[in-house]
């Protein structure tokens, strides 16, 4: 099967005025469709940056990053924006729901941005059932618990049936109980619906619990554990 993600010799250098921060120093990585990959590593090792590049939020400095056969390093800003709409779904540690909108509207705006007309209601209802937030949709984020907010964020990330779900420490702000629930749901999404998932985690146990495979990062490189 062709890889859905293929990263080769990828580097990313942040420039802040005269200072250059090399965040990625030559990453090689391949992910198959339907795979659940965990990424672990110390803080500052470049995990988030890797996700931003794969997710098209920023351009790579050098190397190749092919998503679903398209090379991000050759894409314009506008093309990467288009890729984010339908191919990528982001989940963040801090949930990042729009605070003034209800849960349902947060999901709706993702569809609106993508201009998603042939939206698969049945499929999405199944996702909502799996996430167990059907009765919380009319609430605004402040009225939801952390666990509920993160589940809404997952639903929003999946609203346009992206090929890849990128979750950056999705349980980093949750207590043990809620963490376990969210991890179980991500695992279910992957096992039952075949959703490709990349997840950053600081907790190696979380990786072994739901991922097929775990890669370790340090100083902008993928290393042996």
């Amino acid at each position, binding site marked *: 099967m062709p890889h859905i993600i293929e990263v080769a010799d990828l580097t990313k250098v942040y420039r802040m005025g005269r200072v250059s921060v090399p965040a990625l120093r030559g990453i090689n990585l391949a992910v198959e469709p339907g795979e659940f990959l965990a990424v672990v590593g110390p803080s500052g090792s470049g995990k988030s940056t890797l996700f931003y590049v794969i997710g098209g939020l920023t351009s790579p400095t050098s190397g190749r990053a092919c998503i679903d056969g398209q090379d991000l390093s050759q894409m314009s800003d*506008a093309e990467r*924006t288009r890729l984010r709409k339908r191919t*990528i779904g*982001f989940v963040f540690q801090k949930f*990042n729901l729009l605070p*003034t*909108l209800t849960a349902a509207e947060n999901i*709706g705006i993702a569809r609106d941005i993508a201009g998603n007309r042939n939206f698969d209601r049945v499929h999405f209802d199944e996702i909502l059932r799996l996430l167990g937030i059907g009765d919380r949709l009319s609430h605004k984020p402040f009225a939801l618990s952390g666990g509920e907010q993160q589940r809404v964020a997952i639903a929003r990330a999946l609203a346009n049936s992206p090929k890849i779900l990128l979750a950056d420490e999705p349980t980093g702000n949750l207590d043990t109980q809620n963490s376990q629930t969210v991890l179980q749901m991500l695992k279910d999404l992957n096992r039952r619906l075949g959703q490709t998932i990349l997840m950053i985690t600081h907790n190696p146990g979380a990786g072994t619990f739901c991922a097929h495979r775990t890669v370790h990062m340090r100083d902008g490189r993928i290393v042996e554990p």
Partner: protein
Amino acid sequence: MVNRLVWQNLLHRPIRTLLSVTAVAVEITLILTVVGLSHGMLEESARRTRGVGADIIVRPSTSQAAMGLSSAELNEKLQDKLASMPRVEMATGTTVYLLTSNFQTITGVDLAGFSRMCGGLKYVAGGPFEQPFDAIIDEVWAKEKNVTVGQNMQIWNRNFRIVGIVEPGKLSRVFIPIATMQDLMGWRGKLSQIYLKLRNPDDTATIIGELKQLLPGYYIYSMAEFTSLISINSYPALGTFIRVVIGLAVTIGFLVVMLSMYTAILERTREIGILKSLGASRLYIVGIVIRETLVLTLLGIGAGIALSHGAKGVIQQYFPILTVSLHREWWLWAGLIAVGGGMLGALYPAARAARQDPIAALAYE
């Protein structure tokens, strides 16, 4: 869905929204009131001039188009000469002094002749002149100055006794005997202008032609022509003043909208980052800022139109002598001007939001 987001954004910061709407409302009120006041005063002046009931107006060669006169250069004998023309029913001359304090005029009239021409002054109190230092005022002036029959009024530091109050609409708000005015101003035997009434108004054009032959260099207008000259175009300084006020008003609206949207963008760094992570294009982000600005300005325009009607009410309550006319076509113009200023103000914040780096907002959690 975007509209919902725009609306929620506005509700999220009610004070800021209120301030921006108020600024635009003030902008609109300022424009509508200044334009309405200028047009209103001129329209009112034209209406009163038509109230004279004349068909033709003769003015000396030295007078500037429709400007107030404060001079008397026509020989009184001309009045009789014109009156005796075959198709002229009557002629009456007046002397005019323009009060620079409120752009109203003191008019010297031959009361008998003037009354006949205008179809009679309608007295609501008192009656015609009896003495040289008698004055007749209209109801508006009486209300503005809070005076009544029997009281004195000062004109050129002289005491005039108010003997009559008349309904407004006949040329002037203050009348005094023409002889008195000629004496006081040193205009003996002179008139500021002469009004002609024809036996048949259809002859107006022909007679104007004849008069122009007879009185070369004089300004000779039909009533329609003369009143059409009472417009902003005849008063370049007024036009400039209006443009300056509009300019200032738009600047206020522009600056407040710009500042408001700019702070909104700064505090929504994260939200913009989130929208971008969801795939929102620059255009989409710009669209949100533009819509938000548009809602602000439209609300402000609505409030401003309401406020200008309030301002009109207040002005006419406390300054009856001032006339404000709020034409609908000016609502549209003022609205377009405000929308234009608002959009200009939204430009920089919108561009900044569109250019914002999503990960700068999302990365450092």
